[in-house]
């Protein structure tokens, strides 16, 4: 019998409309610390998902479970229902595929009721609110997803995706406000004209995103005298076009894109006693989170690849971005009904904080380039070396947040302010990265070995000489970016703004997956990160401590199907390098104080052990179960929670010992 050509490439069940490669895409660069609601639970991951908890970053979804084959089966209908401590997650997925049409629909529901931490405290909270209320965590989340695809012939394809995610009453005891409501829609249309192998192919994409968020201090928790809420509305339109072409040993991708990003974030406040006395009903707008921003962003890119031979490939990517943002309400008059004067508007705060006179608009350009060499001596080995200069334009919060206190604009004292710098320079990342991946001859995936010992090894090292890295910092005199007379406008706590600094960043990551035999497997992953603020000669904040993840798994088949058991240990090193002291006028020394977002208690090293198992019956029905944090360890994640913007978060402990079980069904 003749040998088969590799069917993998030919029969790859890759999702349709594979987007063209933009090697120098600046979106790969993320802020050091970002604040966002959790990612969408998309249909392709919904069936295996677990409870999302911003206070515990242990990855349990990717442990080995035999129920994965039920979750990933190409069957018309799949269900998952589980309890995780006293929290619940359910998901249902329907799928159909014919010759010319495919569709996938998903509903998922999360009820996060909280937990007990390793010290026996409820929800990891060990303090009461200023109003004396016992604080807690929790949220309710409902997501829906729909994918519709039409493949009229081999030269064209259209796909429509609709996602909706609603998160209600997301309690954030680490901060003064909770994310009372987060409602997100995403609608996307992809179209391909040309060969699916991208040899001569045009791709179009249109995407619309609608985000509504409300954060407040009274609907989820008991309010005090001062009530406040921030309303955020954002609409983003993206239009992209790219063209891929092969010519000889070269492949080129050319693309253009346009984004229209409109954001309005307003803060409203109410002092019950004062407002009642003055007969003022309702809330009063007193600041802008985003002062009605209208951004037009144009981008053009090209990636050229040259296949030197079967084993060697060289690629060059270039990307140019032009960002024109109008600050529509920068000069808005915000009337203070208490004294008939006005609150500071964005124009006031930008000038007082940074001496930045925007005149209501900011233009910025960014240029990125990347050179990548790949060496593939066989289909089981892949090595690469990359040299890059990547520029990131600051996001809306970093450049335009204008959350100032409700004070006097002529003599504003910024208390609890979060002020973006409209004239921030782009971050520039000049990095070199080396990667390697090696599979032994019989490696066919972790815990899928028929031929005894097999393994996969890999890793990456990146050294980044970052210029103008954007960081959050507490405003103080004598520090670049902040206005020289900033001391007049800050109270003793030092308010938060953004600056550009130079920094050195290292990232090292290695992993190993070993199939010891047909039944046993071991996996290990080690990550190390280093970040140094070279401008101020101090460590960067929120750099992940070194972490080692180990797992030992056993699986076997039985007459009814298969089963597996495993144990996973997560070991996080102490983080001795951080930004632990917040600047105040009292200490008044940048060397002693800066942002102060990091916490010594959270920086302690810890280890936790999970035990888990799974069983599936006839590839149709399965159970997944386990005990997380078997030894009931107390620990706090060093990387602070991120559902709401918070630079001085309270410590919230991660869950203690937790029993869980989920049921999986495929029809």
């Amino acid at each position: 019998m003749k040998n088969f050509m590799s069917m993998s490439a030919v029969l790859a069940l890759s999702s349709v409309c594979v987007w063209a490669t933009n090697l120098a895409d600046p979106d790969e660069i993320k802020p050091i610390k970002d604040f966002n609601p959790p990612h969408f639970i998309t249909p392709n991951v919904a069936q295996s998902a677990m409870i999302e908890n911003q206070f515990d970053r242990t990855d349990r979804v990717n442990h080995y479970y035999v129920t994965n084959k039920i979750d990933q089966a190409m069957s018309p209908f799949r269900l998952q229902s589980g309890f995780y401590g006293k929290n619940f997650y359910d998901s249902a997925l329907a799928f159909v595929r014919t010759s010319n049409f495919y569709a996938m629909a998903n509903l998922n529901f999360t009820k996060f009721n909280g937990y007990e931490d390793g010290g026996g405290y409820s929800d990891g909270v060990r303090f009461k609110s200023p109003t004396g209320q016992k604080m807690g965590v929790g949220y309710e989340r409902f997501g829906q997803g729909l994918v519709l695809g039409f493949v009229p012939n081999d030269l064209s394809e259209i796909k429509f995706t609709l996602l909706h995610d609603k998160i209600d009453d997301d309690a954030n005891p680490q901060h003064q406000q909770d994310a009372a409501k987060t409602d997100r829609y995403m609608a996307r249309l992809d179209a391909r004209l040309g060969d699916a192998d991208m040899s001569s192919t045009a791709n179009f994409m249109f995407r619309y995103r609608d985000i509504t968020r409300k954060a407040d201090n009274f609907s989820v928790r008991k309010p005090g005298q001062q009530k406040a809420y921030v309303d955020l509305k954002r609409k983003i339109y993206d239009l992209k076009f790219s063209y891929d072409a092969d010519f000889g040993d070269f492949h080129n991708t050319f693309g253009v894109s346009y984004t229209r990003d409109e954001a309005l974030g307003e803060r409203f406040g109410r002092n019950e006693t004062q407002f009642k006395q003055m007969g003022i009903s309702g809330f009063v707008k007193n600041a802008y989170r985003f002062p009605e921003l209208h951004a037009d962003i144009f981008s053009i890119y090209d990636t050229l690849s040259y296949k030197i031979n079967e084993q060697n490939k060289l690629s060059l990517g270039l990307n140019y971005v032009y960002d024109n943002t109008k600050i529509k309400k920068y000069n808005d008059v915000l009337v203070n009904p208490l004294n008939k004067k006005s609150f500071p508007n964005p124009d006031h705060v930008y000038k007082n904080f940074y001496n930045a006179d925007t005149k209501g608009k900011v233009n910025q350009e960014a240029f990125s380039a990347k050179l990548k060499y790949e060496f593939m001596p066989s289909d089981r080995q892949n090595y690469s070396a990359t040299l890059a200069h990547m520029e990131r334009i600051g996001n809306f919060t970093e450049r335009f947040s204008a959350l100032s206190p409700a004070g006097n604009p002529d003599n504003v004292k910024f208390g609890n302010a979060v002020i973006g710098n409209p004239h921030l320079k782009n971050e520039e990342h000049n990095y070199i990265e080396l990667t390697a991946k090696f599979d032994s001859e019989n490696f066919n995936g972790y815990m899928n070995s028929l031929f005894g010992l097999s393994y996969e090894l890999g890793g990456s090292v990146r050294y980044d000489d970052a210029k103008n890295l954007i960081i959050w910092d507490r405003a103080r005199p004598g520090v670049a970016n902040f206005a020289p007379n900033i001391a007049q406008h800050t109270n003793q706590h030092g308010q938060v703004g953004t600056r550009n600094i130079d920094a050195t960043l290292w990232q090292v990551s290695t992993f190993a997956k070993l199939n010891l035999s047909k039944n046993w497997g071991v996996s290990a992953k080690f990550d190390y990160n280093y970040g140094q603020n070279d401008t101020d000669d101090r460590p960067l904040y929120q750099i992940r401590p070194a972490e080692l993840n180990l797992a030992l798994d056993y699986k076997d088949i039985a007459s009814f199907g298969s089963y597996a058991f495993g144990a996973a240990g997560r070991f996080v090193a102490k983080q001795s390098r951080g930004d632990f002291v917040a600047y105040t006028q009292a200490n008044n020394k940048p060397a002693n104080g800066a942002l102060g977002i990091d916490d010594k208690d959270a920086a302690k090293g810890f280890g936790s052990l999970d035990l888990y198992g799974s069983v599936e019956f006839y590839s149709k029905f399965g159970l997944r179960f386990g005990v997380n944090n078997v030894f009931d360890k107390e620990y706090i994640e060093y990387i602070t929670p991120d559902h709401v913007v918070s630079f001085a978060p309270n410590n919230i402990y991660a869950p203690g010992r937790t029993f869980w079980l989920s049921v999986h069904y495929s029809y």
Partner: protein
Amino acid sequence: MKRREFLQTSTAFGALAFAPSLFAKENFTIYSAPSLPSLSVAVASLQGELAKKYDFNIQIWKNPDQLKSGVANGTYKVMMSPTNIGVNLRNKGQNVGMINIMAKGLKTIVTKNKPINELKELSAKKLIMPFKNDMPDIILKALFRALGIENVSITYTATPAEAMGMFLAKDEFEAGFLPEPMTSGCVMKGKQMGIKVIKNLNIPEIWAKAFGLARPIIPQAGIIANVDFYNSHKDDFEILHSDLQKANEWIIANNQGAAEIGTNLFPAKAPVIAMALKTDTPSLSKGSELKAEIMKFYEIVLDFNPALLGGKLPDKDFFLC
């Protein structure tokens, strides 16, 4: 301890380290073809009774030359291969015989967008398939001759993947004759390209009708073994037969799990293998139970391409089980 005693003790320990362990199981390896029936062998090696007695393994050979070399140098004692290879080896002097049949025929012909209900609808059409003058080709040509079907233009490729690619890419090819799991792969790939690929006909049934056979079986692949090895392990081969039967039952009942194991054996994704298993369900019969069908098959092969059998039919001692 005196020096002489020390040296004696050390030597004993050293010798023991290199001596075969008293507790290691004897090796029982089946060298198997990169095709669906290997899945039954793989599952048997994971859960069968023979695996408790032996260090039961499966190894996949990459091409017939590797198989022939392994048999010739004595490394390969038990093999799964196309049925013609066993006869070919025996006729060239190798001491092998047939144990069982595990593949009873390429099932279907694929067409694009429109089905066919009879084989004669292929007349005046262009068909593509791999392996000229090999078994699938002979099966089809024998059927065409028996049924009086003419004017079928056949294009051959070196590999099944090439045949599949050209079938989908070129409008001129209206039909394809491919082995599983490539047939199922073709259906799935067609969906990505907006092409409705249809599996048609039941070739073994057509074969049985065309040649007056009682059972719709084309004995395509099965296990062969070194005769001496078989004679010294007859009981074990009975256990193997039982293990393979249970393995087949498990594969039918656990489609996804079987597909996952199958990804170790052939370069196809699990969903493709899962689909292939639904239409090409595993089967098992001892060689002696299908002697009539097997000999008739060999007669036809001999007529078309004697070289495939090594020039003659097998002798009566070829059927071991």
